[in-house]
């Protein structure tokens, strides 16, 4: 049965989205909107798309046959935070199926441009975060938190796994509640709803203080230029960066988690999850 105006509801995963494409071709319909939430109230007809790995693979293979770089654009654009993401991606996939990948040469193409722009924005964020991620040493395990707009953890993964290959570390994405764990050459990304950090040790506080001092000293007073600083390092990045936080910022958040954490001084892991280094 084909509806005229239908909303597709799926599980929010990339495979799920590929299945939406699959269903729309099977049912010969053009979904007017997508919903990645479990609940969806609407006056329009709603089709629940169930994620099926085989269907997702078929769609991916089809896209890759049209254009490998086009399939890659779709994969990347799915991680971005652009508005009406699925609608743009769906239009892009349809164009790729019907015309092949030639239009990818033209970045001003009306279907491709929104994706290209969103990916550029995301790449910029990844580039900045490679530098702006700040680890703290929690008893031998390095931990960091970030608040990105785009889902950047999969893109930061290889960089940090290479750079910190001989460490155990985690990076928590507060916005999307994803946690990247790495230890002993293996990494994975989990969904974690809440992460409470342990209190920093004395040595950690010492190095934070040294870094803060270096940061203040290196600026040349005669050249102070907040506008330029903001251009390169927008303010939204700063609330996870050591140089803009008190050296003992974990202690200042709320009294209760701090107390709870202090009750277990020996454990190196952030509350709730085992630290990567201690997985046995």
């Amino acid at each position, binding site marked *: 049965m084909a509806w005229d105006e239908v909303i597709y509801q799926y599980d929010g995963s990339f495979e799920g989205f590929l299945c939406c494409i699959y269903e729309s071709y099977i049912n010969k319909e053009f979904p007017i909107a997508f919903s990645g939430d479990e609940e969806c109230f609407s006056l329009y007809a709603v089709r629940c798309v169930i994620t099926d790995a085989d269907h997702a693979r078929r769609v991916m293979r089809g896209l890759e046959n049209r254009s490998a770089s086009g399939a890659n654009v779709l994969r990347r654009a799915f991680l971005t935070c652009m508005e009406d993401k699925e609608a743009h991606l769906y239009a892009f996939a349809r164009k790729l199926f019907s015309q092949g990948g*030639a*239009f990818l*040469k*033209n*970045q*001003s*193409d009306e279907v491709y*441009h929104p994706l290209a*722009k969103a990916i550029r924005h995301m790449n910029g964020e990844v*580039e*900045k975060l*490679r*530098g*702006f*991620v*700040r*680890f*703290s*040493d929690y008893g031998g395990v*390095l931990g*960091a938190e970030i608040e990105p707009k785009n889902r950047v953890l999969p893109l930061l993964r290889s*960089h940090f796994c*290479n*750079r*910190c*290959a*001989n*460490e155990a570390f985690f990076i928590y994405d507060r916005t999307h509640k994803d946690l990247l764990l790495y230890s002993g050459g293996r990494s994975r990304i989990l969904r974690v709803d809440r992460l409470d950090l342990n209190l920093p040790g004395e040595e950690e506080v010492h*190095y934070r*203080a*040294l*870094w803060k*001092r*270096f*940061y*203040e*000293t*290196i*600026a*040349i007073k*005669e*050249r*102070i*230029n*907040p*506008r*330029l*600083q903001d*251009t*390169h*390092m927008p303010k939204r990045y700063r609330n996870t*960066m*050591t*140089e803009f936080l008190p050296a003992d910022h974990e202690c200042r958040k709320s009294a209760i988690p701090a107390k709870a954490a202090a009750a277990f001084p020996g454990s190196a892991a952030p509350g709730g999850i085992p630290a990567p280094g201690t997985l046995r």
Partner: protein
Amino acid sequence: MDLLEKLTILSDAAKYDAACTSSGAKRSYQVGKIGNTSSSIAGCCHSFSADGRCITLLKVLMTNSCVYDCKYCVNRRSNETKRAAFTPKELAELTIEFYRRNYIEGLFLSSGVLRNPDYTTEQMIRALRILRHDYAFNGYIHAKAIPGTSPELVTELGLLADRLSVNVELPSEAGLQSLAPDKTKAAILRPMGQIRDSVVQSKAELVKYRHAPSFAPAGQSTQLIVGATADSDRHILHLTESLYQRFRLKRVFYSAYVPVVENTLLPSPDTKPPLLREHRLYQADWLLRFYGFRAEELLTEEQPDFNPLIDPKCSWAIGHLEQFPVEITTADYETLLRVPGIGPVGAKRIVSARRVSHLRFEDLQKLGVVLKRAQFFITCGGRIRSGLRFSASTLVHQLETIQRGELPPDGTMAQLSLFDTAG
């Protein structure tokens, strides 16, 4: 003296060095070692200080004691300031711990001259050796080669560092004689030549033997101080060009002179650093490296300095109106690159897009062209932009008006971002 105070003194003394990049070296992680140098082609900025400059490396001096008495320098012998020195172990631990926390990409090590250049370099080598070998540091190291150091020691330094630099500082021999009487042009250029030859030799050997030692794989850079002497922009730019060509430098950095001392030979201490001038020089430097311009095209004997109100590329275009307008749909890449408002990325996108689509003015913006500047110099499909009115005589004024928004509002000469006007 505790570490916090040492760090304060020795980073404060190093802050006037503009070089802070981690580009050019590509070394993956190695088992048992700490870090890599392959984050991205352009290097990696870890923070931006209050002056808007990028922080990539832990930039410190080994010691700020110095036997020289260069007039422009905070560390000169005759300046009464607190002196300190890192021990190699302190420096290595600090670098490692900062690096682990992703504060920095590596170490930038310079030094005041202790006793003589050879002795100072030996101290630096000792510290870097401890960092590289005892602490297994595999990240980026930028080291200063001090003029007057013997060639064997420069070689040793180059095998430990990713990039070496020798600072020219004063753009002319006359400036050097009056302000830095302990240095000579020959003493500065000698290590530069040696570094150039060693890099070439090391690259050739690496082709033949995979495990040949690699000498300064990220090449060398230098710094010129702008505004301490009377040298013109033209002189500085020609010097830059010849440094790129003769010594194959990766970068030339410019540092607007900040008056740190009262001296009859120098600008008075209440002079503001010439930041806008520095910015124009960086823009011109970009034009030399990425846009195929030559120094003699940008400035002439009649006009030896840049117009502060218009960027160098626009200035050049106004002086060469006979080469415009450029037709977007047919011009080759090199010609597109000469249009103000079109950079390497935009030009590449245009060349690619026009093969599959008929480009309009609206599309150019989506391709990353800065249309407000480019519009005066292009046609698209044989037509100029609709509604655009200008003549050769009003063009300068129109461009000045457009760029006024990019200048600091109160007319002070603040440092501008290169990326604002990169086109």
